């Protein structure tokens, strides 16, 4: 496992997203209400850039017409064909076992634990770290 410092927390506020290349792979990162999520930026279907997808919630219905809406902002729809992915797991909503993209662990960590790399690490604030 490699840990990559991608940004100071102050530069990656809630409601924003960004796309980084780590070890040659494009990874889409999201800050949803202070929680960080990372997905491989490539839809397993036809390769659509997930970083450009819309964040929505989970629409479910036990019976026709009985809609429920939960987890707002945690479901990503591919910008091409609308496949829904769970930000937390990378699994597709329609077939979680067979169709999934890789999810990465993304955390905010105190600078004291981090080594300075190409992103300057300032000791006075936390940084967003992606594990690959």
């Amino acid at each position, binding site marked *: 496992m490699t840990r990559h410092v991608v940004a100071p927390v102050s530069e990656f506020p809630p409601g924003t997203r960004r796309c980084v290349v780590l070890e040659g792979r494009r990874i889409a990162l999201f800050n949803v209400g202070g929680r960080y999520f990372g997905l491989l930026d490539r839809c397993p279907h036809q390769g659509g850039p997930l970083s450009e997808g819309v964040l*929505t919630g989970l*629409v479910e219905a036990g019976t*026709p017409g009985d809609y429920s809406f939960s987890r707002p902002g945690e479901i990503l*729809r591919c910008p091409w064909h*609308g496949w829904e992915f769970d930000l937390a797991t990378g699994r597709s909503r329609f077939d979680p076992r067979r169709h999934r993209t890789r999810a990465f662990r993304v955390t905010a960590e105190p600078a004291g634990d981090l080594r300075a790399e190409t992103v300057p690490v300032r000791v006075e604030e936390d940084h967003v770290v992606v594990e690959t």
Partner: protein
Amino acid sequence: MTALPPGAIDCDLHPAPPSVSALLPYLEPHWADAAGHRGLHELETIAWPPNAPLSCRPDWRDGDRRPGSDPERLIGDAVEGFGTRYAILNCLYGAPMLYSEDMAAGFCRALNDWLRAEWLDRDPRLRASILVPPHAPELAAEEIERMAEDRRFVQVLLPVMGETPPGRRVNWPAYAAAERAGLPVAFHAGSAYRHPPTPVGWPSYLAEDYAAQATAFQSALTSLVAEGVFQKFPDLTVVFAESGVAWLPAHLWRLAKYWRGLRMEMPWVDRSPEEIVRERVRFTIQPFDAPEEPDAVARLFDHLGSDDLLLFATDYPHWQFDGMGALPEGLPADLVQRIAVDNPLSTYPRLEEGEP
């Protein structure tokens, strides 16, 4: 010639009243009187003009008599002819298409009583479907409850093209009644002609109308899946009769693709339409609109992806095949057994009850 195994069940045959006046003894007094003094015309639909080649196989014709109107001929040609254990009668007479809900329901009741008295009571191998008015689901539910007590009625019959797409909630009371009674709902080729039978307007030719039946079944399947009928009625089986079957794989590929991208529109559809259809929908085998080459047929069955889908049917007296060739050539024996015997028995649990 692919031979039928013993115990084969013919899941689609078409009896017809010899004329509308044959129903008079079975109509309630109000409707019988009205039929007389209003000069009610024959209720054959434009889908099956009796003299059109498709409407009756030449060797099953009987002079000028309406095809399918003689029980002895049907029993001789089809039941004896193919040696079937049971034959399920789907009457296509146009009574359900009458615009008045009450009149359509009244004539459906008469047709059901006529079927029971003139057909089912005549031969223990005969079974029938319950005719109901497609545009009056509450009245349909009442009629399903009335007829379901007779165990020889084994399913509910609706035209594939009614007044609203079949999945729409307005239709659900009929499905609820069918599910309660343990009866499959069959959609049969045909239309109430409330709308043009194609998405692009009224066609010119009967041949075009008949070709369009396959596309009507495609959109009916889409509707039943999208509206969540299979989730709402978990014990309901749907039968597509005279639908053709070769279109099914491509349609499911397309439907599943749009479901994957637009699932949020129909969140109750919680698994692939392909899985739902393979589990819950059955198709009568005639017309088998596929090539004759056994290789192509084998490939088609591979694309269908299940041996449970098809039900043997002659579609008597419609002219779909000649001689005894009701099944495609080259089918393996175990698949023939499934199509002719096992699948019908699991689709129609009432058949297992044996002779009433």
